[in-house]
């Protein structure tokens, strides 16, 4: 396994690390792009991206982990677009760069949370993508979701034990001084699309022959195995979808066993997915410029 630093993008403002196999690269396998999770730098939460890249290098997969502008070592954003658009632009710049470096047959885009959103958005617009790994990506409540979350949760003795533990966050939040810097949530750069829109997006990717790997945790809002297909019933029976539920893992896979489980799932998926179908070639879709977007809304 070899790693080298790369600087790329039209203004040379993005920093990344390419991980390449020591010996034989498997040209039949796509190259992997690992996208930032929130504001976590390119190594990933708990160094996950590094571990994934190095594991897959053993399988002959080339990968690039990089920082979106304004995150990690990459420079401040320069195009004035919201993150959900700039992430797509920069993902495509990363693909352009890696294509010139290693000439992969196609790309897999992977990300956690907002990284999953960026991967999905970029995959929709980019015909070179043959697979996506969405970790705690799009999740939606279903009837069973509410049963698992509230009704069954109330019956779980562990939840009550947790609540009675002095380390439970409820007690700690009651007795600690609230920081003036403390924020709750910002979905300004991760806005969940309507369920119908997400379903249609997945269908379009599947129709193109893109392989989809979904990995979910409870902290990501996924409460039971089957929630994905209950959320998107039109996708039942479709090939090229792999859904995994790791209920005890947290959103950033803090526990070492959960990191191993996640990496194993990704490794297995790379090995077993059907990469023989070349991505459907078509015109590259451009994002509308800000002025065009405003005009479209008016």
């Amino acid at each position, binding site marked *: 396994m070899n790693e080298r630093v790369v600087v790329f993008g039209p203004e040379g403002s993005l920093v990344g690390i390419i991980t390449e196999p020591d010996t034989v690269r498997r040209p039949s396998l796509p190259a992997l792009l690992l996208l930032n999770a*929130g504001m976590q730098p390119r190594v990933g939460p708990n*160094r996950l991206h590094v571990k994934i890249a190095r594991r897959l290098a053993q399988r002959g997969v080339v990968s690039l982990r990089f920082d979106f502008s304004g995150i990690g070592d990459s420079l401040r954003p320069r195009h004035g677009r919201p993150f959900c658009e700039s992430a797509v632009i920069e993902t495509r710049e990363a693909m352009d760069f890696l294509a010139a470096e290693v000439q992969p047959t196609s790309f897999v885009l992977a990300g956690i949370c907002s990284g999953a959103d960026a991967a999905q958005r970029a995959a929709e617009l980019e015909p070179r993508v043959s697979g996506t790994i969405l970790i705690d990506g799009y999740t939606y409540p279903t009837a069973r979701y509410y049963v698992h979350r509230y009704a069954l949760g109330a019956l779980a003795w562990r939840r009550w034990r947790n609540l009675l*533990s002095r380390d439970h966050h409820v007690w700690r939040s009651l007795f600690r001084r609230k920081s003036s810097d403390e924020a709750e*949530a910002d979905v300004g750069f991760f806005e969940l699309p309507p369920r119908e829109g997400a379903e249609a997006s997945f269908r379009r990717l599947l129709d193109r022959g893109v392989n989809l790997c979904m990995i979910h945790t409870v902290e990501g809002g996924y409460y039971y195995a089957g929630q994905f297909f209950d959320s998107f019933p039109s996708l039942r029976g479709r090939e090229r979808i792999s859904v995994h539920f790791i209920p005890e893992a947290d959103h950033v896979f*803090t526990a070492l066993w959960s990191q191993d489980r996640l990496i194993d799932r990704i490794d297995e998926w790379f090995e077993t997915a059907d990469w023989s179908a070349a991505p459907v070639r078509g015109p590259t879709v451009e994002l509308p410029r800000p002025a065009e977007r405003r005009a479209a809304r008016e």
Partner: protein
Amino acid sequence: MVDKPSVRLTRGVCKGDIARRARAAGFVSSAGLSDACPVECGLPENLTVIRPFYFGPDGRRLFAVYHPPQATPTMPIGVLLCNPVGFERARMIRSFACLASELAQRGFAVLRFDYFGTGDSAGTPEMVDAEQWVSDVGAAADALRRAAGTLRLSVIGQRFGANLGAVASSRRSDIEGVGMWDPIPRSGDYLTELWDAHRVWLGREHGEGRRPPQRSGEVVGFLVTEGMAQSIERLDLDRLDRSPARQILIYEGYREPRAAPLAEYYRRLGGTVEYRHHPCDPVPYREVGRIQRPAIESLKQWVGGLQV
């Protein structure tokens, strides 16, 4: 600077889930990424002013980012930044990147790097102990000297990075100043704090708060081996037999400071020691976007006053 955000909901989505996921991923700014960076930090606009690279022998390659000076320096001193380790590293990345950029804009050559087995450097934590990390600090100092062509260096470390930087500096003769940001005077306390952090995390995630203390094992996403634990315990700052440098800054942001006796100890060893205490709220372990501006300003001011 962190604003109070508003939460924009999408129909059919549970607000609580979105809030939890956003917190988990370290979202802090309502302005979004495109606005937070220029407002909070003097990050450079041109990537030619920073040079990421790998250095070191095959099998022990370390990742580093060099910030060449962007102005004529008042004092020819290079600055080496030593990260904290484990889960604390991610919380410091933005602050160290800002500190490095702003020092470079003032004319100082700066290097920040990842120890072996951390960040983008080679290796895994099982392959290394704290003494090897001290060696990594020395190797990074040499890399900075080669990159900057400067003979004199200063070292700034945060949390256990302060310990590593101070110990490494005490073994060299070319370190003019050592800045210790929230150092841990007794390294054994660091192990205790790690297990406490892990216990709190277990309590939040699984309600398993009451666990016996351990010497080695998993700590909030990272592995601390027995060898690492033993090597950590040997890096007490108050047992160095010489001052880490002639000029020392100890900066504490803890609400309950503990390093004032360390400042006295280094004064007895002949160091010129400045001690500053500016309590601030602790950064939650998953919050990676906060830039710790008061500490950055204090460290910049201290570096600017170093004498060669």
